[in-house]
């Protein structure tokens, strides 16, 4: 095939023009922590490399219309340095544990979402926070809920000429809401999570008015646990935690068959049983952590 060309558009419009021109023949490079390796080692060969990481319009973090808005090229480190972002405890906790420091310097949440791998920690946190992305193309923009964005292992609903311009997280008014993220790994640093859970809890007195629950590393995509959410609504937090521990094994078993990480592994069965028994604990723990934060008066 023809030689690859490297483009470094100076603004969003130029980037969208290039994307529109090359479409499937283009690969977007943002922080590069995932895609560069695949470009350099021949796994991804495209006519055009479009480097968007330094486009000023994609670098901002702001607030408006009831959302915290995170630009598409904002790095994990930028998030950790931003009080606006760190008001979402689940996001802060998820980002803190991603990769290693030199990955967080370059890597971006938008990239993590665009990559759509099941263990993407950021996915689970963002999903529990009910986040959406704004996909931009030359033709305009559209908002996509995370649960609709990630459609399969490493596949998203983004069109070939779209990029993630920003991520929006809704700010829930009032002080009775908090979130938490937990992951379980064999190794402390830069390990892929064996299981992760993110919860956003909104209380009505001592009763769960609303809980958003997301689980990572249990299926081929990050999972929003709607049935759990329904089951815990209206219950006290303590009862909800017990309900979660009871229900999760079936939830996980249901989805484990889809997880490509299980294929061919000699220990697949035992790993699945482990996940089934442990994720409930993790989700319940995340919920109790969020509850503790509400009691402590944090957002």
């Amino acid at each position, binding site marked *: 095939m023809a*030689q*690859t*060309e*490297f*483009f*470094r*558009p*100076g603004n969003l419009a*130029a980037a969208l023009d*290039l994307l529109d021109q090359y479409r499937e023949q283009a690969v977007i*490079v943002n922080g*590069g*922590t995932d895609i*560069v*390796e695949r*470009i*350099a*080692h021949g796994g991804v060969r495209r006519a055009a*490399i479009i*480097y968007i*990481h*330094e486009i000023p319009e994609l670098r901002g973090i702001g607030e408006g219309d009831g959302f915290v808005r995170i630009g598409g090229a904002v790095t994990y*480190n930028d998030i950790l340095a931003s009080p606006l972002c760190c008001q979402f405890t689940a996001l802060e906790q998820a980002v803190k544990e991603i*990769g*290693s*420091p*030199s*990955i967080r*310097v*370059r890597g971006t949440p938008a990239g993590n979402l665009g990559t759509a791998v099941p263990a993407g920690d950021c996915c689970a946190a963002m999903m529990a926070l009910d986040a959406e992305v704004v996909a931009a193309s030359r033709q305009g923009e559209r908002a996509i809920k995370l649960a609709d964005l990630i459609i399969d292992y490493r596949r998203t609903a983004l069109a070939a000429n779209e990029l993630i311009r920003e991520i929006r997280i809704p700010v829930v008014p009032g002080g009775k809401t908090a979130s938490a993220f937990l992951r379980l790994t064999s190794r*402390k*640093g*830069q390990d892929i999570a064996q299981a992760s859970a993110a919860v956003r809890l909104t209380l009505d007195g001592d009763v769960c008015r609303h809980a958003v629950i997301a689980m990572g590393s249990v299926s081929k995509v990050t999972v929003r646990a709607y049935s759990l959410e329904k089951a815990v609504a209206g219950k006290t937090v303590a009862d909800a935690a017990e309900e979660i521990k009871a229900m999760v094994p079936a939830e996980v078993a249901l989805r484990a068959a889809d997880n490509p990480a299980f294929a061919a592994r000699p220990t697949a069965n035992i790993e699945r049983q482990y996940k089934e028994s442990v994720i409930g604990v993790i989700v319940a723990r995340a919920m109790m952590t969020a509850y503790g934060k509400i009691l402590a008066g944090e957002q």
Partner: protein
Amino acid sequence: MTSDVQLATRPADVSARDRVDAAKNLVVSFVLNGKPLSVAVAPTELLADTLREGLGLTGTKVACGTGDCGTCTAILDGEAVRSCLMLTAMVAGKTVETIEGLAGESDIHPIQQAFIDTGAVQCGYCTPGMILAAKALLDENPKPSADDIKEAISGNLCRCTGYTKIIEAIDKVANAVA
């Protein structure tokens, strides 16, 4: 934005301002170890390969190619990054430091000395990456806690495996700098 990415030979009819024709070599200009330089690279070329093969700076190692081991660590605008996860074209206009740039004219950097003093060097293959990760940490946070140190080098594997002594070395510099 294109001023740092130039064509080796610029065609007369560059229509798109941001377009770089890869059939020609890409010339990337950046500051390396304090000195400005321009280097001709392929568009898919990794910074690690440019440093090692193109510029002969073999203190930067490559040992996994997937960003998991940290031996290719370089400092980009003050922050430790994986040079095996960066295309060289991405560093145009930026400042890059490698292990070769660390020693001063008269003597080696205190972090380098501390690695020797505490016995933090064994086979030595992870050492340049470890030292650069440590330097990026100490430049940003001169008085790190033990946990800060562990966190800063959590992406650098040492198989020999001298983690305890590496942490001692970095801690020693932090305390001596006081």
